[in-house]
């Protein structure tokens, strides 16, 4: 386990060491979350590096990453714990054979031995030597009742199991929650967290990210890609391409041995960047050519 960063600058530098190019504001929020031991709530468009920050934090601090992917209908049994009914049944049969008394059986049947631990409970296990990074991903995909389960974990880093008692983390884990905002998350959850809206990066930062994430990309190609994507985000599309798409696209273009952007290769690979047929139809042909023209003109000028 590595030590926590000492200042905002230190946070930014260490994130950068692990190839995460954070702007100053994000570095500030991350630093605060670590220092104040508060969960970090990240909201933003898909593909802007929200999940990646949790992964980077785990690597940077040398801690285990525990990930809880949310989905509709996710409940305590999937998120926190479930009793191992099969083993409990077996225990009952054994108890019958051995003639163990009722009270002893009742006490034994709901002990920790029979508990299947799911991500939330794993993250706050008091026997852990180093607290992990807990990533609760795409919280907006879970339904509202699930948020209520989280409240106890987020504020006190503990879970109460009716049959067993309260399990509380010895040292609080680092918690990162992400949301794509397909619905509004309840205030009670947000209130317990530090909030940050993750923006699309500006051109300079996107170029830096690209060079770090796709080593070996030609300078001119990278510059043109970034300029193209930045222009694309100004067009009113149904789904704007995120950084994840930019990186994917760069890899695709490198596979095709493209050195610069030209209308044909853009046309062929647009599906990597845009994920809606309407958006692709809109950008194909003259529109893409126009942007490429613009990108080239600006590089010469």
């Amino acid at each position, binding site marked *: 386990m590595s030590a926590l960063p000492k*200042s*905002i600058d230190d946070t930014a530098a260490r994130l950068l060491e692990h190839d995460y190019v954070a702007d*100053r*504001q994000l570095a*500030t*929020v991350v*630093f*605060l979350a670590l*220092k*104040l031991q*508060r969960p970090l709530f990240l*909201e933003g468009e898909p593909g802007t590096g929200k999940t990646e920050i949790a992964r980077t934090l785990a690597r940077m601090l040398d801690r285990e990453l525990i990930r809880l992917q949310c989905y*509709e*209908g996710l*409940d305590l049994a999937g998120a926190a714990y479930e*009793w191992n*009914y099969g083993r*409990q*049944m077996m225990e*009952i*049969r054994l*108890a*019958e054979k051995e003639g163990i*008394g*009722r009270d002893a*059986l*009742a006490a034994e*049947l*709901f002990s920790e031995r029979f508990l299947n631990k799911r991500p939330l409970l794993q993250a706050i296990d008091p026997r852990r030597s180093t607290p992990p990074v807990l990533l609760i991903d795409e919280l907006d995909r879970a*339904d509202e*009742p699930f948020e209520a389960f989280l409240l106890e974990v987020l504020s006190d880093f503990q879970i109460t199991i009716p*049959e067993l008692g309260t399990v509380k983390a010895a040292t609080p884990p680092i918690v990162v929650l992400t949301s794509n*905002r*397909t*619905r*509004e998350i309840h*205030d009670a959850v*947000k*209130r317990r967290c*530090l*909030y*940050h*809206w993750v923006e699309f990066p500006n051109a300079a930062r996107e170029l830096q990210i690209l060079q770090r994430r796709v080593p070996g990309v030609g300078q001119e190609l990278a510059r043109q890609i970034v300029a193209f994507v930045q222009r694309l985000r100004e067009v*009113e599309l*149904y789904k704007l391409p995120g950084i994840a798409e930019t990186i994917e696209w760069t890899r695709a273009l490198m596979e095709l041995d493209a050195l610069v952007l030209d209308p044909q290769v853009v046309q062929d690979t647009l599906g990597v960047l845009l994920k809606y047929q309407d958006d692709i139809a809109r950008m194909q042909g003259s529109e893409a050519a126009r942007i490429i023209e613009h990108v080239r003109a600006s590089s010469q000028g």
Partner: protein
Amino acid sequence: MLPLQQGPGHLAENVMHFGRVLRSAGMPVGSDRVLLALQALQVAGLERRSDFHAVLSACLLDRIEHRELFDQAFELFWRDPDLQGRMRALLLPRIEAKDVQPPVPENRRLGEALFPPRGEREEPKPPEPDEFEFDATLTFSERERLQKADFETMSADEWRQAQRLLAQLRLAFEPILTRRSRRANHPGHADWRATLQAMARHGGELWSLRWRKRRSQPAPLVVLADISGSMSRYSRMLLHFAHLLGHADARVESFVFGTRLTRTTRLLKSRDPDVAVAEVVRTVQDWSGGTRITECLHEFNQRWARRVLSGNATVLLITDGLEAGDASALAFEMERLHKSCRRLIWLNPLLRFSGFEPRAVGIRAMLPHVDRFMPAHNLQSLAELVDVLAGPPTPQRVRTADPSAA
């Protein structure tokens, strides 16, 4: 928790005051958030102004919509020493310079929050009291007549009575199965946890299995109401109706559109339907103006659909569909709307004319993309709408919506 230390100067006081300013500008900033901000400031240090901004926004902000307001408040609050003077200037009525642009609404709201005018605060007008005692025993024929009267031609009294009748509608919502479960008495999914608890209590004897079943909830509703001149009375009644639905059982999101789209969900939260609808009318600026259906639908699809149409929503679209613009663009937006919701019900008051035929280009463009096409010009048609909302299967829960009893 870190102990809070009083730094030199008045930082703590100022942050507290800043929190109060944000609160009165309409942002939900509790005192716990202010305390958190103070802790965070101690940890982060105060070297740079941008860090200071980042720290405060991480602690005091909890949704992106408020960021602009926050930024403006931050700029005003933490920069200018002569804040009061500036705010006073901002709030003073500009008598001599009439052609000067009025301050942006956000600034105005902020201005009032930063420097509240004393004493002469404009109280919101209470809704006018009913002038006569409502006679609850309407005769049968009166009832009958009201049921079929067109909202457009109702007198003020009839309008009020119609609202009462509307409130008496028995509402039922189509139940949608969720992926959550609850205890049940009948065999279905076995509830192993409860079963084993029971077994443990009885010394391992299996008395009876316990069961669970899927939980259902009413289908959420999204109301899109056209408030252009020709539609305004129908839309007003539909907003009353939406208010009713929202206070009965269902989750209701509502939007109104004329020349632009406005979200009115929060405005309809008020208990009293008259106050709620009056609030909508007051806030929305393009009430009874023109209409641009295509642009508004486009904006809805682009900005809101992904956020409010999750969870199998039913969309109620009330408009006459008389759009002058490009029919293919309208058809495109309708198709997208239709594909992203579970049911799209179009309420068109034009259907009140018995010989109505969809001749207008706009209507013909929209029609292929709706699941139901219904009139909404009188109480009877709204009652039919309730039946449609209850869905084909027999409703599981029936509840009367009576705002006075709520």
